[in-house]
């Protein structure tokens, strides 16, 4: 149980959240510049309002909550979870002002979807959206992929010894370098390098496919951001299907598969440890589950018979499977196709790999390959123990950058998080069924939201019930932060309420 927080605790958390919101305001300068260069003056005003609101909030927090204390674990958890919610509320300002949303809730839904790299969206008339708004959608998914706390750490928390506590609270446990600020900067360096290379490849292929130079450049940047962050946003409503291009599909597939790998693995490979690619438990887990998914998909396609050739299997089947497994959400089919054209088995193959998801400490969501590896090795150890003499010691280890011996707390931790995911997936599906959606469709979209994937079988739309929108926002948020920060935030709110009630009773 969290002890009743003091005024100092609340102030420190407020100060930390203020810094995160300043980071959001700084991010908005990129779409602002895009809108200015594109002479989209209405959009310029939208982003000016957003930036000024963020700066005003930060100044209020600086004036009222400035604290000399450093963060403890509890503060880090609350700053991370509360920071994401506040960032959603402020980030939705320019989106809502654009006129593409019927309600502020819808804009908040898209913001949370972007930050958490989910990719589901309620924006209406995307094909008439401005460059500024499109830059904002893709930038926030790119930034959210690294973690908005990572952004704040990179620029705004320098010199704070408790920074690591906020960093870990965002669902990242890897410390690439001894200093967490340098770790955050290393994550950015990796992402920016891939941004330059990936966007160039996409630009060349888009030019080859007949797009004009300037629009091709913008689209290549946005497609990279959407794929690398495993967000899955695209600037046109048909998503990747808009381009009708094998090369665009192949390049985005490579980008989102690489983007779904653990940043620690990236860093190990970058610093010369190339063998890590073959030895890492997450790569092995991903390879195994995607192979099993491919087998299931083949059986499903074979039975249904819509996509017959190898090319069709790759571009319509494997692409969606890999997009689902890496929790990206880029798509080359209509959302209704999952239900109508894939058939039951193939659709469930996509649902299962979405539920498993990508790597820990990556831009992806879901159970994560690391946890699947831990649970699998634990089960293997249990079986080996059963068939061994009673006195035999059967140790199990996993390889993730270095060898790690499995112990009970590690296995319990992995199982706890997996169970949390299963619970939120199931509740979302039940809610969908209660509202009258087909069970497979309800499961598909619920798992997609909870695992931060973004593929949709048709349930997610601006017309979906408000309660489902709110629950999906919660799922995206909880799934991205992996529950601990969320549990801490609710405990904190409970402790605050208990404190107020106790004070009232005393007076």
């Amino acid at each position, binding site marked *: 149980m969290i002890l009743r927080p003091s005024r100092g605790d609340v102030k420190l958390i407020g100060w930390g959240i203020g810094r995160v919101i300043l980071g959001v305001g700084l991010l908005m300068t990129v779409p602002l510049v895009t809108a200015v260069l594109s002479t*989209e*003056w*209405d959009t310029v*005003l*939208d982003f*000016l*309002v957003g930036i*000024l*609101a963020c*700066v*005003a909030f930060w*100044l209020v927090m*600086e*004036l009222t909550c400035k604290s000399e204390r450093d963060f403890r674990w509890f503060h880090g958890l609350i700053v991370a979870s509360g920071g994401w919610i506040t960032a959603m509320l402020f980030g939705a300002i320019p989106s809502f*002002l654009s*006129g*593409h*949303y*019927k309600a502020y809730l819808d804009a908040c839904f898209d913001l949370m979807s972007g930050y958490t790299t989910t990719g589901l*969206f309620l*924006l*209406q*008339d*995307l*094909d*008439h*959206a*401005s*460059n500024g708004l499109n830059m904002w959608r893709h930038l926030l998914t790119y930034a959210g992929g690294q973690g908005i706390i990572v952004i704040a750490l990179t620029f705004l928390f320098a010199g704070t010894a408790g920074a690591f506590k906020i960093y870990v609270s965002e669902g990242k446990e890897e410390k690439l370098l001894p200093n967490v600020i340098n770790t955050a900067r290393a994550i950015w360096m990796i992402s920016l390098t891939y941004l330059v290379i990936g966007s160039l490849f996409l630009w060349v292929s888009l030019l080859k496919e*007949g*797009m*004009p130079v300037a*629009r091709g450049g913008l689209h290549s940047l946005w497609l990279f951001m959407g794929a690398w962050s495993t967000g899955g946003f695209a600037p*046109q*409503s*048909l998503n990747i*299907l*808009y*381009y*009708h291009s*094998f090369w665009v599909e192949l390049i985005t597939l490579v980008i989102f598969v690489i983007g779904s790998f653990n940043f620690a693995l990236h860093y190990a490979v970058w610093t010369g440890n190339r063998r890590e690619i073959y030895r890492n438990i997450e790569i092995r887990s991903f390879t195994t589950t995607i192979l099993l998914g491919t087998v299931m998909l083949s059986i499903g396609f074979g039975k249904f018979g*819509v*996509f*017959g*050739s190898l*090319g*069709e299997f*790759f*571009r*319509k089947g494997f692409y969606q499977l890999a997009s689902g497994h890496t929790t990206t959400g880029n798509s*080359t*089919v*209509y959302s*209704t*196709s999952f239900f*109508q*054209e894939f058939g039951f088995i193939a659709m469930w193959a996509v649902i299962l790999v979405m539920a498993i998801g990508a790597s820990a400490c990556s831009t992806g969501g879901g159970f994560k390959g690391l946890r699947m590896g831990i649970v699998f090795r634990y089960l293997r150890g249990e079986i080996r123990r059963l068939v061994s003499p009673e006195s035999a010691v059967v140790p199990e280890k996993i390889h993730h950058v270095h060898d790690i011996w499995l112990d009970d707390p590690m296995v319990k931790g992995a199982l706890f998080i997996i169970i949390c995911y299963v619970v939120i997936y199931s509740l979302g599906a039940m809610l969908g069924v209660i509202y009258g959606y087909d069970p497979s469709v309800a499961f598909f979209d619920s798992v997609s939201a909870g695992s931060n994937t973004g593929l949709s079988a048709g349930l997610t*739309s*601006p*017309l979906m019930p408000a309660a489902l929108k709110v629950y999906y926002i919660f799922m995206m948020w909880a799934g991205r932060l992996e529950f601990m920060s969320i549990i801490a935030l609710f405990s904190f709110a409970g402790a605050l309420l208990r404190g107020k009630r106790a004070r009232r009773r005393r007076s």
Partner: protein
Amino acid sequence: MKRVGIIAMVTIILVVVLAGGSGGIAWAAEEVTVEELVANMEEFDEREVTISGEAVGDVMLRDDHGWVTVNDDAYSVESIHEGGDLTGYSNWGIGVWAPRTELEGIQIMGGYKYKGDQVRVTGVFHRACQEHGGDTDIHANRVEVLEPGHPISHPFAHWKLILVLVLAMLVMALGYVWWKRTHPSLPRGWRG
């Protein structure tokens, strides 16, 4: 009487042959919406259909053919920047594969700044096109421009400008207080 019958028969045959030869069998194609096509892919697969809507995005030419996306949703009639209502979905569009000569007539593509040309497309609908890796598309034999596109005016929202000014004043006031608090030892002339 027999002669009249023969003349009528020949006339009918001539009309059918000539209409077919000039690509004018469009009258046989069913007029549908993209939403209907997507919802009933199996039913419309390999059938000739006609859709009408706005050309959006880009014309992507590839050798002697090219792609264009045609939307026929409510926004293709009146986009939200022209005052159209939010109808509860994003867009309904489909990729159209057509000969380069048919696409040359399209001049303005829909987007934030422009309402695209209104076109009428007749062609064969493919639920999973074998030529294009399983894409859901229409292979058009005819693309007509019904109405040319036009620029969309975005009237300056004065209320947004007022909001910006109010927020800017608030930020300046807060910034001043914050600056004074964080720089207490500045020379007198700097402290206002």
